């Protein structure tokens, strides 16, 4: 009887460890986001340089770059392949005359069909092409009024942290097979704090 009770205790303990172990993973992020060591307490303590690195972890992710191509074809999927059906940018970044983005994409994800959607679904203008650029080149382009639509730094921060199409990256829905799309490697709140910390520190761009 005693032996049986000991075995019961041991198995309960093992089960408890297993359950506790699983419950301490970071929710939807399977591994810890790549925060700089110093930033793990709070992103508000980031230096502008650390904030830049964190922000660029997001801006160079496929959820952003797929719609910032350097040519006239949107990319899609985790492998950033050219959009199926020969879909093209068109004159106003919303597709061609009778094959517009809104032919298929609406203002919300359609998780039944696996078609992503968000308000103003479209490609970034050609001048805002990021595909193939380094982090430094992206930052320079992003702060250049000739490329960024004449935005001030404040307006650029607003776009990066509040535009629904940008923030869609953290609610990307599922693909045509029902598989959840990959999210950027930094949680949304940490990313927003990093963008603001970078801007507050004078938006420095490191040397190449």
């Amino acid at each position, binding site marked *: 009887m005693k032996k049986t009770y000991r075995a019961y205790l041991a198995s309960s303990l093992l089960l408890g460890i297993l359950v506790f172990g699983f419950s301490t993973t970071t929710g939807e992020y399977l591994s810890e986001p790549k925060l700089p060591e110093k930033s793990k307490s709070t992103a508000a303590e980031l230096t502008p340089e650390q904030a830049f690195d964190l922000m660029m972890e997001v801006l160079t992710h496929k959820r952003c770059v797929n719609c910032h191509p350097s040519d006239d074809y949107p990319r899609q999927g985790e492998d950033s392949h050219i959009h199926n*059906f*020969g879909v093209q940018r068109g004159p106003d970044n919303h597709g*061609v005359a*009778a094959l*517009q983005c*809104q*032919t298929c994409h609406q*203002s919300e994800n*359609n998780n039944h069909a696996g*078609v992503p959607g968000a308000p103003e679904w479209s490609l970034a203008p050609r001048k805002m092409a990021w595909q193939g650029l380094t982090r430094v080149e992206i930052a320079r382009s992003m702060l250049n009024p000739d490329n960024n639509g004449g935005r001030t730094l404040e307006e650029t921060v607003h776009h990066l942290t509040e535009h629904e199409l940008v923030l869609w990256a953290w609610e990307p829905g599922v693909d045509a097979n029902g598989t959840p799309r990959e999210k950027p490697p930094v949680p949304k709140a940490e990313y927003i704090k990093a963008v603001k910390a970078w801007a507050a520190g004078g938006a420095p761009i490191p040397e190449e």
Partner: protein
Amino acid sequence: MTISFNINGQPTSLDVDGDMPLLWVVRDMLDLKGTKFGCGKAACGACTLHVDGKAIRSCSYAVKYAEGKNITTIEGLSNGDQLHPVQQAWMEEIVPQCGYCQPGFMMATAALLSEIPNPTDEDIDNNIVNVCRCATYYRMRKAIHRAADIQSQNAKNQPS
């Protein structure tokens, strides 16, 4: 929720789940069977219809977005007994084989001709990306050019 829209010129009001695909509403609630289900993923184009004159994949278009809009299906493409140029051309060129995908192609083509009245082959390639398993693409290309001619002729014959 209650959704109201015009379909083929008729005002319609329905109590429906707003996330239901418009295709379900059109086929199963309004009994307009011309618009077809193909892939259910906005890929093949069999479900194409017009919302405010623009081509839309209705399998992936939640009906809530149709509130207050004008929807046209293949059943409403003609003007009474006067066939749409696309319908005339499709008959003249004997385009369909099995025919399943053709309503979607015809609606996509009608949307194209309203934007580009005389499309080039390149315009057709860029804008009409529907899928036909019978591979009637060659006849469709001829029919699209023919429809453009008919549309142009009709415009000339209209009293000013």
